[in-house]
């Protein structure tokens, strides 16, 4: 019953396990769109998209996204862009960087930004506690980033014709993920409590049984070889085997 109770309790309390995911694509573009202009060289935009993907993981952009999505920024974290030397196996993240990863480990809203190799497109993926929440945050990425860029443009008095323009490529696509996570956790809790309970019961019972056996054996030894026991200290002077030798 305890095992079933713990499994049920865990399943009910794990409401913030992420089950929603959404993805959205953003095009880094010029006012005269690259898509519509044959004379536009896309290379500077592609390299800029890679920079954007990295900047979008920063707290500055996350704050803007959180504001638009109406989610506390402390519940958000971002990773990426997983390019360059960092994508190799066995990334030797030192303690200082790992500490910061751990601080963000429990944030329920997680975002990943990935810049495409040959086009100025950034794919953003959102993981959230539910599908609507994931869709909501994914929808806020474009607006939040745009707000950040506009603030810099305003600060630097960027001419209209030179302004970097972000375009959202379609609406966010959302779906449910991690469907079996809660069940897995509940099953693990059930089995763990069951095994630990059985071990405790068997262990205590076995210990008492063994103690009684040994006590009986001590009585027999004392009967046949009373000198093996120090009456005052209840401490054997020599073991029975040694005594016989």
């Amino acid at each position: 019953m305890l095992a079933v109770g713990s499994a049920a309790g865990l399943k009910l309390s794990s409401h913030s396990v992420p089950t929603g995911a959404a993805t959205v694509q953003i095009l880094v573009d010029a006012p005269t769109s690259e898509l519509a202009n044959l004379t536009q060289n896309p290379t500077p935009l592609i390299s800029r998209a890679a920079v954007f993907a990295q900047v979008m993981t920063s707290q500055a952009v996350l704050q803007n996204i959180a504001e638009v999505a109406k989610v506390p920024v402390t519940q958000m974290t971002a990773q990426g862009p997983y390019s360059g030397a960092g994508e190799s196996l066995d990334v030797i993240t030192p303690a200082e960087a790992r500490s910061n990863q751990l601080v963000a480990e429990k944030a329920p809203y997680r975002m990943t930004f990935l810049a495409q190799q040959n086009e100025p497109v950034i794919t953003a993926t959102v993981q959230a506690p539910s599908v609507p929440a994931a869709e909501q945050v994914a929808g806020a990425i474009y607006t939040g980033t745009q707000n950040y860029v506009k603030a810099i443009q305003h600060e630097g008095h960027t001419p209209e014709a030179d302004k970097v323009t972000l375009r959202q490529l379609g609406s966010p696509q959302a779906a449910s993920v991690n469907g079996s996570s809660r069940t897995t956790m509940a099953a693990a809790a059930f089995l763990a409590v069951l095994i630990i309970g059985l071990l405790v019961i068997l262990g205590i019972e076995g210990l008492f049984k063994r103690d009684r056996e040994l006590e009986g054996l001590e009585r027999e030894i004392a009967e046949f070889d009373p000198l093996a026991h120090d009456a005052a200290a209840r401490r054997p002077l020599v073991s029975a085997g040694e005594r016989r030798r």
Partner: protein
Amino acid sequence: MRPAAPPRASRWRRLAPIGALCTLAAIAAVAIGYSPTIAPPGLHARSVQLGAARSQLLIDNTDSALADIGTQTQYQTELGSQLALSYALYLRGDAATAEIGREIGLGSRSISASGPFTLLLERTNYARKLPTLPEPRNVDGSYRLLTDVDGAHPVLSLYAQAPTVHEAVAIVETARGLLERHLDGDQTDHPLPGNSDVVVRPLGPTTAGLVGSGARWQLMAFGFFAVMLVGGSLLWARRRRTARAHDAKSSIAKLDRLDDPLPGADEWPHTRRALPWALAAFIAMLFLVPFDAIALPLHLPVNGTLDRPVLIALGMLWFATLAVVSGAARPRMRLGRIHYAALAFFAVCLLSVALNGQALANMTEVGLTVKKLALLASYIVFFFIAASVLRPREVARFAALMVGLGVIVALGTIIEYRFHYNLFYELWGTVLPVTKPNGFDTIDSIGRLTIYGPTLQPLELAAMLAMVLPFAILGAIDAKTRRQRILYIVAVGLLLAGGVATARKTSLVVPAVVIVLLACYRPRDVFRTVGRLCIVLFAIVHFTSPGALGSVINQLEPGHVNSALTTTDRTARYDAVTPDLLRHPLIGRGYESYDPQKYRILDNQYLDLLITVGAIGTLLYLTIFAAMISAARPLIRDRSGHDPRRASLALAATVTVIAVAIGSALFDVLSFPHVPYLLFFVAAMIVALREASPAAEPARLRVAPPVVSAGPNVAPGEPGPQPPGPVPTPPETREPVLV
């Protein structure tokens, strides 16, 4: 008449040890959490929590690259990334670290600075290692700054770690301010035209947090209960030591001698019992088949590697035998200390996943832990089956089988080393879908040929061969004929040669430990066998694997052992995983959830367990080894010499267990199934050695008594009217022999 109880000690004498133990446990708990000082007297909290902070800077110009399409080209991005690298290196310089130290209140002490780590700087085996001069500065290692750039983007990341969050934030902000001041000074002294000035643009405020906020109390509680548990066990053992010694002696005296003939014994290989044959087949698979690289197209809830269906088949056979067979041929399930230790470890592993499920789901690591739990369950199920099936007289024969199979693996390894042909992968690849591991037949970063044998890791192969070595050495010592002795000595030579061919340090370290341990128990025999024949063994190793021994010895030389990446990376991990250890010190982050491909290859099972199942899980893992060793100990230390054969086999098994315990510090043993399966098989051998041989009796099928009709008016199952007169004896039920 009931014998009189031994006289009871006074209450004070009985309570004094318990009081002393409680005091000792309390002192241990306080010592874990606080460090005492004598002058002035006091207790100071140990630094078991970390403040962490992070900030990012964009290396930009006045017309921001993010805002203005006219300002940036690919060339400028590269230039920005080069500047970011320069700034990262500037911030870790002596002057900058001293300045930051002064500004955050450390006085004359500098902070420690490192990075950038993403570019993998300072990680080379080829650069000449110069002697390191003593550090002239007074550096406080508790205050750390890490700078990082990826070499491709103009973004500089600053990370800090300090005893408190406030200090960590101060380090990051001081570093950022210092860099901005440095650039301002440069630009004032050397003005640049147009928009060429570099602008360091902060990408948002500094984020910070505390790692290991409850670690101190958790560790103190753990220390208290660990001391109470160990101390209580020792007190109980001491209190009952006479009876225990007597009991152990009488239990051993009751065991039959393995070398005495037992007429009609139904023992493997002279048996028609199916289970021992199935076990032998499984062991053969462990040695000869790269089963972990064979994924069968089966729809199983866990990985479909070859061992799973084979284990499922073994389990079904075991259940069928339990259900159908009676008498001595029926598997005997007696739960002992090894069973309990393995189950307790498994339960804690499950608990770690259940308690951290949300974080694991966040990091999409639930699937990984489930796979690893299934693998762990496989090991334990295999142990339960093997321990219930094996008989004491079969242990020696299975040990001989293991040595034979080990020699085949060693020969295959030598062939792979000399001819670059992996027999196991190539031959099985013709009939089964074998996936070759990455780096097959390639040279690693320190110039070693990667040898796999039937495994997925050269270290696993070296450990597997070392595990067989004690059985081969003791086989040579205990051999009854000259021919047997020569064969075993050749086997020892080939096992050593096979291990050395892997060119891993483990291939010499673990066998050396094995030989030393054997020598501790049986010095004369070991020196007579191994010592006298060391020249022969050396010749076998040298001629079968030429150059390999020199290569391994070279790695172990004092000048190399501490400088090779294989060593420095291992030692670097101890510091790097500190935040993970402090995050969940007791129960860990979830069994085997620390993905080596995502975070860091640890090459240390203990470190991995400390992170994933915490101190409790690691202690229970060690308890498994302790249970195996303690189960074998009475047999080894039997001074009466009742059964030297059992003692010898128990010693070989114990040394194998210790070899795996040492190997666990050198690689993540539980992730590579050859070694754990073999370890649990050796544990099953220990369990079998502790039991007496069953009486000679043929296997019988269990037959239910025939249902006798009680009459037309009686419901089935109810007793019918008893006929008058004497009760007839039921006809003898026929128990057919298992064919």
